[in-house]
């Protein structure tokens, strides 16, 4: 068993503040003097029984109500993430071609808390998305303008824009709980400890043990999902078939920020301003050197002559 996170003494707790930010959307931040320990949530897909206790706990803790929807013929309910369902269990029925066995793959979908978050990179609103030095990527709704740029930036298709208030929503990794020393609500609620939470190092160690166990039981491709393309993530998965993450409801094999987004948020910004500036400067210089193009007295009299000869 992974030792559960004890409930801390709330009197001593402090909230994350500006001093803990390592990234802030559309802004520069000073390197924090003291960094928090990187934290991570580990989701062991091989242990998950699909009870959705985490999903309910998330709704409860965040005081969200998912409106009654439609059954799409699967156990996915709701079928996908929504502004009110920050995490959703994705059920995949997969026939293992080697063993011919039906395997039920259940992945808890939600924000991965990327070390290099595409959502934050794309966001144009200062401070609408922040990243704490412990790795948690959080949305600050007061600053969100509802543009949906984060949706385009995210390699995991996570943020959802609410129709009610036009703001972006996603899993916060329970930053409000973590900041006072508690674990995420979903991890606390998980009856099988398929979700555990701790420092990233602890979680990797824990995953190692789990992977050894899975390998010993015949899952030779068991492994940890901590994709380097986004600098690693602060939500990691133990997968029994880590060689093919796609079979887990389309978990990307090699996620990274789309090159289109990199161009848009990188070179395009500077080149765009530079080109516009260059045109304006050309105008000013041209006028300074060449002077205005004025109509002369001769032009006026030529026009007069032309009209008069025609009458």
């Amino acid at each position, binding site marked *: 068993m992974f030792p559960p996170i004890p409930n801390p003494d709330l009197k001593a707790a402090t909230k994350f503040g500006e001093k803990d930010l390592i990234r802030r959307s*559309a*802004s520069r931040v000073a390197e924090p003097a003291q960094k928090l320990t990187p934290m991570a949530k580990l989701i062991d897909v091989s242990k998950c029984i699909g009870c959705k206790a985490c999903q309910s706990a998330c709704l409860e803790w965040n005081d969200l109500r998912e409106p009654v929807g439609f059954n799409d013929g699967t156990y996915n309910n709701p079928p996908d993430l929504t502004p009110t369902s920050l995490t959703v269990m994705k059920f995949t029925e997969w026939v293992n071609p080697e063993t011919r066995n039906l395997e039920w793959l259940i992945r808890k979908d939600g924000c991965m808390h990327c070390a290099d978050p595409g959502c934050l990179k794309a966001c*144009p*609103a*200062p401070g609408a998305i922040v990243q704490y030095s412990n790795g948690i990527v959080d949305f600050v709704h007061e*600053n969100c*303008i*509802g*543009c*949906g*740029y984060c*949706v*385009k930036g995210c390699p995991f*298709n996570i943020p959802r*824009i609410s129709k009610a208030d*036009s703001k972006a929503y996603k899993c916060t990794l329970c930053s409000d709980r973590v900041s006072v020393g508690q674990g995420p609500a979903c991890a606390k609620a998980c009856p099988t400890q398929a979700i555990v939470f701790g420092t990233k190092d602890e979680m990797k160690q824990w995953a190692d043990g789990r992977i050894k166990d899975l390998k010993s039981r015949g899952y030779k491709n068991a492994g940890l999902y901590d994709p380097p393309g986004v600098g690693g993530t602060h939500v990691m998965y133990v997968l029994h078939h880590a060689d093919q993450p796609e079979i887990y409801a389309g978990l990307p094999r090699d996620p990274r920020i*789309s090159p*289109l*987004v990199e*161009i*848009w948020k990188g070179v*395009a*910004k500077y*080149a*765009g*301003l530079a*080109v*516009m500036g260059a*045109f*304006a400067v050309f*105008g000013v210089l*041209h*006028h300074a050197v*060449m*002077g*205005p*193009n*004025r*109509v*002369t*007295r001769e*032009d*006026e*009299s*030529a*026009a*007069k002559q*032309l*009209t*008069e000869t*025609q*009458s």
Partner: protein
Amino acid sequence: MSADEMRADEAKPGESVHRGDPVVVDRYTAGARINHWITAACLILLAISGMALFHPSLFGLTALFGGGQATRAIHPWIGVVLFFSFSGLFLRFWRLNLWKGADTTWLARLNKVLGNRDHEDPDLVEIGKYNAGQKMVFWGMTLLILTLIGSGLVIWDEYFASYTTITQKRLAVLLHAGAAVAIICIWIVHVYAAIWVRGTISAMTKGQVTGGWAWRHHRKWLRELVTGGPRPAE
């Protein structure tokens, strides 16, 4: 018809020559001018609100529109107004902006034009209602506005989020930004040309220019107005 008006205005409203000193030439109808200024206002508002979301250092411009949320909400609607307003201009002017052989000549001698020496070159003197530079502004704007409205609809998440994939939206957002930069550059050229070539702005404020201006910059057009020449097919 009054004696000091030439007969050409029968063929085309808003284009007639008034004799006098100086000669005054009607260039744009009131309708065309209103249409132009609505388009201009939209373009400027779009540029400001768009740039606010384009570069973080310009985000402060959202204050002019009542904050970030309001800017995000209003920008696409201004785009819709611009689209219809520009469509009006397009219908008014597209025929006169068709490319002619003489336009290629004009373009090849752009250095003379920019050097204020076009009046020394007989090939550059006989210009119709629009020169090649103006035509390029017109077609550039047309093409870019189509690009902007098309890509803009793709990223107008409030109404159209579910119609396209995220990859399509990423492409659209990049295209939108590129086209916006290009159209702002064209706009700078357009405004600068109007300032540099003195006597131009009155065409869009009063609808009229002096005969001398028409003689100097659009002599073929002036001749045709005076003689009631082959218009509007040019």
